[in-house]
């Protein structure tokens, strides 16, 4: 199924965004032939208790064919409490984490502990390497992490797939060996803005086989990522759109 791995429903606290409800998201997907999404709650990113956002979203998308990625902030005490509530309350296919919003890196003990718990459940982890344009933050400022910390995490034996969302082209270039060598790592195209010909660039870097589609909609214009398929061979386009990060 053609899938958007990087999409959200809910309220973006810093600006009016259009079509932020689930119907708006689905309608945008349908317009461009996307059949489903691994969707998360924007509320869960910013709520004191992420579970409240996940629970809201699980009701909204029930029976829609869309799948939920549960948002986790490993810096909150007793992360297992959140995971258990998710296990008991709704179906979810992945965990989604936001280190630049919640302020940690991949050497942080709390993250390592969370990773162990996620691995035991066999769920993929979606890592947002940024969350919006850091140059434009003024009401809230993201805390960037050292790419070396991510690189070192990825070089350890990965027990569950990791999808890296919102990575810039220069960041991908800096980690190309790690990304290429590990079977369980995937990337999305949502943040590769500093290139006119993204699919060509990823192909040259050998990363196209790792690429899934993610739009970061509704924070970014949906077409800003999707337009990179214009002029791309249909077989390659469909391969990317249909690629799964796990069974």
């Amino acid at each position: 199924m053609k899938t958007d791995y990087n999409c959200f429903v809910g309220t973006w606290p810093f600006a009016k965004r259009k079509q932020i409800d689930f119907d708006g998201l689905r309608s945008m997907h349908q317009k461009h032939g996307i059949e489903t999404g691994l969707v998360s709650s924007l509320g869960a990113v910013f709520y004191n208790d992420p579970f409240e956002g996940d629970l809201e979203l699980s009701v909204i998308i029930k029976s829609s064919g869309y799948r939920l990625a549960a948002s986790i902030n490993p810096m909150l005490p007793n992360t297992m409490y959140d995971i258990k509530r998710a296990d008991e309350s709704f179906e979810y296919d992945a965990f989604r984490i936001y280190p630049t919003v919640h302020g940690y890196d991949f050497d942080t003990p709390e993250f390592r502990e969370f990773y162990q718990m996620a691995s035991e459940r066999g769920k993929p982890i979606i890592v947002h390497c940024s969350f919006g344009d850091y140059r434009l933050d003024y009401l809230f400022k993201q805390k960037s992490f050292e790419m070396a910390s991510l690189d070192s995490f990825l070089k350890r034996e990965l027990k569950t797939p990791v999808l890296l969302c919102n990575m810039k082209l220069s960041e991908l270039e800096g980690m190309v060996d790690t990304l290429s060598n590990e079977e369980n790592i995937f990337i999305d195209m949502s943040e590769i803005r500093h290139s006119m010909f993204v699919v060509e660039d990823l192909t040259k870097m050998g990363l196209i086989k790792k690429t899934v589609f993610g739009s970061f909609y509704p924070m970014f214009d949906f077409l800003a990522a999707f337009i990179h398929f214009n002029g791309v061979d249909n077989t390659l386009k469909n391969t990317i759109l249909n690629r799964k990060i796990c069974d």
Partner: protein
Amino acid sequence: MIIDAHAHLWANHYKDDKRTILKACETFGLSRVYISSLASHYPDYDEINYLNSLTLGFMKERPELISGYVYVDPTHNNKLDVLEKGLDAGMEGVKLWVAAKCDDYRIDDIAEKCIKYNVPILVHAFQKATGQLDNESTAENVRHLALRYPELKIIMAHMGGNVYFGIRCISDLDNVYTDFSGTMIGTGDIDYAFEAIGEDRLLFGTDMPSGGRQCIAQVEEARLTKDQKDKIYYKNALRVFGGRR
């Protein structure tokens, strides 16, 4: 028709940049691209000459596609000679980057020349949460310049970086246009700008070779009529550059 009012050759990879720009013209149907050439933040006299020669060279190679801005450093003593030489050679506007803020008094004689020749100044303006350069203009600096010279045509690049800061600074200034180059792709940014300043002062610009494809996506996704999109894609640019073309 699409006119790109904001693109560059970077001195350290200008040959690749030319290829990217020409390929983009072919792929996306860009009918004209206005370029300037850039390198260091504080160029010396020789560097300015070299950069303008790169722009002129590309204009001569592909006159049917490429137009140029003459790049001027306001701190240089020969800035007016550089400006006049560039315009005499067929360049159609002036580019200011980060050597001095655009409301610096050393811009005044440049502004007066631009009014005389009826050419626009493309001002780099970017309000950054982090990494702001010492002499990097923001939309507030653009506002000061525009109020000082109401007859001067100014293109504020990148919507001032942050559309929410940038647009409020130019909302009441009819002599200021803005482009949305610079890889800001927030959903609804164009709609926000359109609601504040209308469609007559928005210009299509990409900032190629650093991205740009998403600028087409932004226009297509905005809640605009075909006529409004046409103004943004090319009609406004024809008006801005009308003094020389």
